[in-house]
């Protein structure tokens, strides 16, 4: 074997060992770097995909009318998303503000984003959106639609971000059930198609199908209180706690436009 090949092999071995020993912080930086590299390809592909899927629409409507319709639709969704978050604030939180002296909360600052693609992996529920750190997005920001909570940002590059959906097993959300004092932790599962599992409920909880579930907004958490999360499909008591199966309020399988909550107004 030539000396050059031996040297190349040695470099490869050193590289493999080095990558295996990387810590989480470095890996997160590398992940953001990879997103940055993939961003132009994904964004171009997303634009092509959108233009292809929009051909039929353009044939049916005037371009100007289409733009106006899109603008109005986006505005409408933004307002509905704000309303979704405000609904609960108008009731529970007003009372909490008075009693506990919580700082008055206002509506959210929302950054609209288009969904570029869904993760092709089988066991992770993530999407990529066309907004990044240049738009004020950072990791661990809530992502919503006009119908409710979608997930949170994880890896962020300059102009693209990855969002882990609430249907992912690793996206845990503190939640409360409407009309009750029941609170639990919601997360996805590997064995269900998009359903959420709300655990750590009381075994004696009297939950009925159709009851709405909202984010609880725990102190120090990522998700603000009052965002629609899902509706109860079923409830069963387990050995130590109660578990409810939820249908997500937002249609996670058909996301096109989302809003990133960058803070309060």
């Amino acid at each position, binding site marked *: 074997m030539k000396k050059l090949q031996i040297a190349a092999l040695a470099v490869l071995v050193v590289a493999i060992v080095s990558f295996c020993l990387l810590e989480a912080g470095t890996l997160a930086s590398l992940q953001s770097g990879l997103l940055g590299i993939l961003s132009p390809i994904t964004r171009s*592909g997303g634009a092509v995909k959108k233009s292809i899927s929009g051909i039929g629409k353009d044939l049916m409507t005037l371009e100007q009318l289409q733009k106006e319709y899109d603008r109005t639709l986006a505005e409408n969704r933004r307002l509905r998303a704000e309303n979704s978050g405000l609904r609960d604030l108008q009731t529970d939180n007003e009372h909490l503000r008075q009693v506990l002296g919580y700082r008055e909360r206002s509506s959210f600052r929302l950054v609209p984003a288009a969904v570029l693609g869904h993760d092709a992996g*089988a*066991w992770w529920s993530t999407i990529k959106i066309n907004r990044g750190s240049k738009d004020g997005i950072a990791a661990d920001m809530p992502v919503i639609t006009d119908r409710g909570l979608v997930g949170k940002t994880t890896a962020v590059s300059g102009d693209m971000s990855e969002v882990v959906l609430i249907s992912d097993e690793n996206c845990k959300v503190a939640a409360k059930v409407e009309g009750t004092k029941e609170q639990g932790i919601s997360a996805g599962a590997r064995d269900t198609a998009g359903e959420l599992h709300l655990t750590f409920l009381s075994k004696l909880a009297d939950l009925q199908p159709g009851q709405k579930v909202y984010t609880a907004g725990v102190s120090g958490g990522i998700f603000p209180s009052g965002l629609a999360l899902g509706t109860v499909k079923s409830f069963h008591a387990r050995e130590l706690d109660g578990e409810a199966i939820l249908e997500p309020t937002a249609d996670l399988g058909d996301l096109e436009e989302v809003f990133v909550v960058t803070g309060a107004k």
Partner: protein
Amino acid sequence: MRQALLFIILLILLLVSVALQDLLPAIPIAQSRIQLLPIVFCFAMLALPLLPALYFALITALVQGLLVLQIQAGHSELGLTLPIVFFVSWAIVLQMSSEATHGMRWELHAAGCALVILTLLGGEFLVLCMKRGGFPLDVNIGLQILIPALAAPFIAPTLYFGLRGLVPFTPDAGPVASQPSFNR
């Protein structure tokens, strides 16, 4: 020089495949997703000599590992070790298979893609079961593993001949392919 050019072309295709597989819609059955990255990986393993193939396997492992990376409480759930071991192992196996069959063959590429996807998805599932606990294997999960693997042999030949066209100096483009040789 030719090998370097081939390596760069395959590297670009690897990144394009990652972006493309995210853009493709899910297969209606069990919401399975088409996997393109392993198809490009398998082609590279068959087309490149051993050392560049190992480097390519390392890069593929980094890309795949970082794509599924999730940081939980300051710790990465999977890290890069398992993807590196997985892809380097498959690189060696595919290189040996290629030598055993006297060069690149589209049948080998198609079968390799199916096996790589099957073991990739199955392996990820098993690792997650060990990390997170539980073993929720059901029909839906079985289909999510099987369907992308079964779809791969149908996609692989298209990409194989397409890539061979893009890279006219691939080993089986000329008479070299018919000779048993280690100098691909």
